[in-house]
């Protein structure tokens, strides 16, 4: 069977800083990394492969530019090959436009038995892409997987909702979104990192997958008005006295002075 894992490249959030004047985030030039939930998806698919199932694992990503390191990491994490849609026209695309691009790329790859997407992206976390792709391709959709199993041409997934864990079955092909509850992604071994560079990589523009910039513009657009850090003024006082005894006493004193600690 073929599994396609859709991966979003995201900026390393730990490195984003605030511009003190504008309160806006400074993201330009920062390293790009593999989205967190996508690592869980790759781990799950790789585990299936290791269990003896015949699986071709393809990783799919899209963006205005994609970092080589990101693609290589996904290959090191177990993908057999990669497909990337790299096109300037994706810069202004909304979730619906990106979903259409991914759906077209999935068709170009020749479809898949299972398509895995993170339940939300590390940066935006809008959680729309998996559902949107399933709408376009007309495939069954199973969100929020915390367990995943393949049985012949059926998959069984336990979904994590706020109130219930719901286990459902579906025929393949189907689209599944992955939660962090499903597994603990491992760190690729050096040999896996070295092998990654040898694996096949395809890079396509949107015209290669049968779309055009004009068609992308027809998808509903969302205009950004502002993206700012919220006003937050914290004191940032570090407490360190001669002993833990005194440090904690000092903390209690401070909190009493603030009037937030009742006797």
């Amino acid at each position: 069977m073929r599994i396609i894992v859709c991966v979003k490249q995201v900026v390393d959030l730990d490195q984003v800083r605030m511009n003190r004047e504008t309160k806006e985030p400074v993201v330009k030039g920062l390293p790009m990394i593999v989205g967190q939930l996508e690592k869980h998806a790759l781990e799950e698919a790789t585990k299936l492969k290791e269990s003896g199932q015949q699986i071709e694992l393809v990783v799919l990503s899209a963006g205005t530019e994609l970092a080589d390191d990101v693609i290589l990491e996904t290959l090191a994490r177990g993908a057999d090959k990669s497909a990337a849609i790299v096109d300037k026209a994706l810069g202004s695309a909304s979730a619906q436009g990106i979903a259409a691009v991914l759906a077209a790329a999935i068709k170009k790859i020749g479809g898949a038995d299972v398509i895995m997407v993170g339940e939300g992206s590390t940066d935006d976390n809008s959680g729309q892409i998996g559902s949107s792709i399933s709408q376009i391709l007309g495939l069954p959709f199973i969100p929020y997987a915390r367990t995943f199993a393949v049985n012949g041409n059926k998959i069984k997934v336990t979904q994590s909702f706020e109130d219930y864990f719901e286990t459902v079955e579906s025929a393949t092909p189907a689209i599944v979104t992955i939660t962090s509850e499903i597994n603990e992604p491992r760190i690729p071994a050096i040999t896996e990192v070295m092998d990654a560079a040898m694996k096949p990589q395809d890079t396509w523009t949107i015209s290669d997958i049968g779309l055009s910039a004009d068609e992308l513009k027809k998808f509903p657009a969302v205009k950004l008005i502002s993206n700012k850090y919220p006003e937050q003024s914290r004191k940032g006082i570090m407490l360190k006295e001669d002993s833990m005894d005194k440090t904690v006493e000092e903390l209690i004193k401070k909190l009493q002075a603030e009037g937030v600690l009742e006797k």
Partner: protein
Amino acid sequence: MGGILLYAEKDNLAFDLAPKALEMAKGLNVELSALVLGQDAQARAAKYFAYGVTKVYANNIDLSAVFDCKISADALAQAVKNIQADVVMCVASKRGRVVAAQLAQALGAACATNVLDVKIENGHPVTVRYGLGGATMIAEQMESAKKVIAVLPQRFENTAAAAAGQVIALDIKADKSALTMVEKAERKREAVDIENAKVLVCVGKGLKKKEDLTYIQEIASLVKGEVGCTREISSTLGWLAEDRLVGMSGKRCKPTLVFSLGISGQNQYTAGILNAKVSVAVNNDPNAPIFKVSDYGIAEDMYKVMPKLIEKLKQMKA
């Protein structure tokens, strides 16, 4: 311009959002209606009148066998076309979020999910949500005629006077789901309201084992607070119920005092304590980002701090 259609998978979630939907309808000068689907839809529909929603469409298609966002979204799409609504306001619960995305794709509508608030500016709805994993606030305007707005579950205060309304039976065709339910297990739940707790004692992955929660619980009881936690503790490890999850994917809290113990301070978590009055952090890593959003910090092993904190709080009370 067409009207606003309010929908949620559970009536209580819709009631919580109704005041905001009403405010939007008044601001845009359009009609607000609601859609109720499922068992007893007609009877349930009349309950919306108390929230100022006076036109409620109802259809008792069976959604109980299995959650399939395609069936819900398809029903909503039929309703939107039938009543010519331009804006769908729904609740960004986990189910609601995927229904919203599915619906938007079908309608050719722009879609905003996990919306914290929505306001009218220059005659257009402007949505606000978290950006960059909870670090920033993003304000956006959807440029399409049809819009789907999924607002994070939260209670907007109901100021509407109960009014007489009408329940209208709506014809909806539902396909059979491609999914089969195998098993349904209720999640461990706790009747706890951390959103309105005055003091919160939150714990993260610095906690080494589940039994050590007794430290956290003791501190919480001494400061008359509730225990909260990060995603690792509730979702990954399952040591605490998700009702205690603080942050972007959990509850947004506004305590006067919050302790963050053994929490590194990813935006995912800190987004939930943005509105705390005083913030205290304990973490063994002096460079942990949590200290940047704290008033008072102790860069020490939480296992050294907790027993001392318990001792000193007891002394204070004595």
